[in-house]
């Protein structure tokens, strides 16, 4: 009896491991291939049979990316925009979430519904008026134009997530400070914000990811090469050097590193924050 249970457990274990390995090949295989090709020469990329471990291992493609001031400019633009969006989104959403979590006021319910529903507004719907609006406001092909645009998409999510986070913290914490005569601003920034670091960090990472990855508005609201961001840069590289796959892959690897690093270091915060925000409302 116990042996048959044991055998059944063993075979279940074996099946699970086979399933997990197949799943891992599906999930990570393409990414391993990208990494492998970024270290190949262009002739080796098209050699048959393809080799996973390259014979001609070289950093040439990376050197070419770093040596090109145009691609470096794409990175600079993406960093400036993503960092600005993250900081501004946090600054504004922390204050909004504080009001929504701690105060009762007229219009609060309506506002909650509005903030949830604007998340569903399709980017393509906003694109056409934005094009006109950004030209009219003189923000077309500028940093502020893209930063403001991205904030419209990051802000609702950040507010919902932070409001949920603040709601889990006892009101007595910040109310005590207010009753003692300090203003709400002090209660928020001196008491609530310091103990909310995990929630704020996960919102910050999520915001950075959105801004770093955005494509549609970066494509449409910028015109000159010196204003393009990394996602557009990858596409441009593909168009110009359509046979230099090693450079395209090297650029893709470099363009993925910021998000990968953030995720690696803050994985725990991020996973719990994300599921708490989007799924549990």
């Amino acid at each position, binding site marked *: 009896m116990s042996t048959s249970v044991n055998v059944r457990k063993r075979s279940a274990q074996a099946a699970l491991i086979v399933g997990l390995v197949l799943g891992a090949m599906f999930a990570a295989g393409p990414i391993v*291939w990208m990494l492998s090709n970024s270290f190949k020469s262009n002739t080796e990329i098209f050699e048959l049979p393809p080799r996973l471990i390259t014979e001609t291992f070289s950093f040439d493609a990376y050197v070419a990316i770093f040596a090109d001031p145009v691609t470096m400019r794409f990175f600079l633009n993406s960093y400036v925009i993503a960092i600005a969006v993250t900081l501004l989104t946090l600054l504004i959403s922390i204050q909004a979430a504080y009001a929504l979590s701690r*105060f009762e006021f007229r219009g609060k319910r309506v506002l909650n519904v509005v903030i949830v529903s604007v998340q569903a507004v399709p980017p393509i719907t906003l694109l*056409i*008026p934005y094009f*006109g609006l950004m030209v009219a406001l003189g923000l077309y092909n500028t940093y502020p134009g893209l930063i403001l645009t991205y904030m*419209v998409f990051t802000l609702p999510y950040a507010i919902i997530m932070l409001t949920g986070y603040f709601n889990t913290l006892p009101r007595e914490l910040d109310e005590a400070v207010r009753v003692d005569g300090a203003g709400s601003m002090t209660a928020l920034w001196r008491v609530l914000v310091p103990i909310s670091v995990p929630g704020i960090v996960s919102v910050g990472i999520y915001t950075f990811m959105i801004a770093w990855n955005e494509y*549609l508005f970066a494509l449409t609201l910028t015109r000159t090469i010196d204003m393009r961001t990394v996602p557009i840069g990858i596409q441009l590289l593909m168009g110009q050097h359509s046979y230099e796959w090693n450079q395209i892959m090297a650029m893709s690897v470099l363009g993925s590193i910021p998000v990968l690093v953030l995720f690696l270091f803050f994985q725990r915060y991020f996973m719990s924050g994300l599921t708490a925000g989007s799924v549990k409302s």
Partner: protein
Amino acid sequence: MASRIPSLDTEVIVTGVSPSRRRRQLRKTTESYSFLAPTLALLLVLMIVPIVMVVGYSFQDNVILGKSGEFVGIANYVAILTDAGFWRATSNTVIFTVTSVAAHLVLGLGFAMMLNSKLIGAFPRAIFRGLYVLPWLFTVAVIAVLWRMLLAPNGVINFLLNSDIEWLASPQLALGTVTFINIWAGYPFFMVSLLAGLQGIPGDLYEAATVDGASPTQRFWNVTIPQLRPIIVSLLLLDMIWTSQQFALIWMTTGGGPIDVTEVLSTFTYKLAFAKYDFSSAATSAVLVLLMSMVLAIFYVRHQKARD
């Protein structure tokens, strides 16, 4: 804390809404709105105004470029709704969305259950979880070029299958291929959320089911699925909203081609505006996309409220 201001509280009980109470309420509202002011300003200028603008455009001709838009009533709507291209894009969007979302759920739940199994140790589980999350961390531009390379006629996938299929250029296969890429890119969001959900199911529910003689399949349908249901419904609605709006992946892999077989509503609308410079028709199409998304959003908001 209430004890510090007893006189006020007594007064409220005696006289109903006292002037000081009302003043306090007013101050609270003013203070709340001062905290919310930047958010409201941004949402007004970059959400409400643009939506009003795009709706306005959809009732005019020659907008943006012509500068002399004239009111044309519902003419643009009639034109778009009788355009075969619009309906083709709509049906492609529905196929792309329904297939992607269903596969995201199945793969996400399958992987989440494998990762939740106690048959392997915590460390290997963490490694596999890290690998499974990977596709989620890459920008869509990278995903697009990566798969274009993998799926090229002389690429590694054709080598492995010993074929020379034009995955992204074949009218028969292109829609299926972009859907597959979207499935690869999107399942981790389901997986992560469902894994959290699985870990929240109390173990004694399974024990009770086992004592009652339930088989693993019965435990799955009678314990796991009902427990995860609220999360699953949220995820399905969110993913439907997002997937039906997908632009970048399709734009960068097929551009809507070959011969419109992968044209979805977002690429169709984009081309009207920025390839044909017909901003009036594009605005009309964009408003129709907005209406469809709002229907999904209403279901989502209702569902979230019901869960509170």
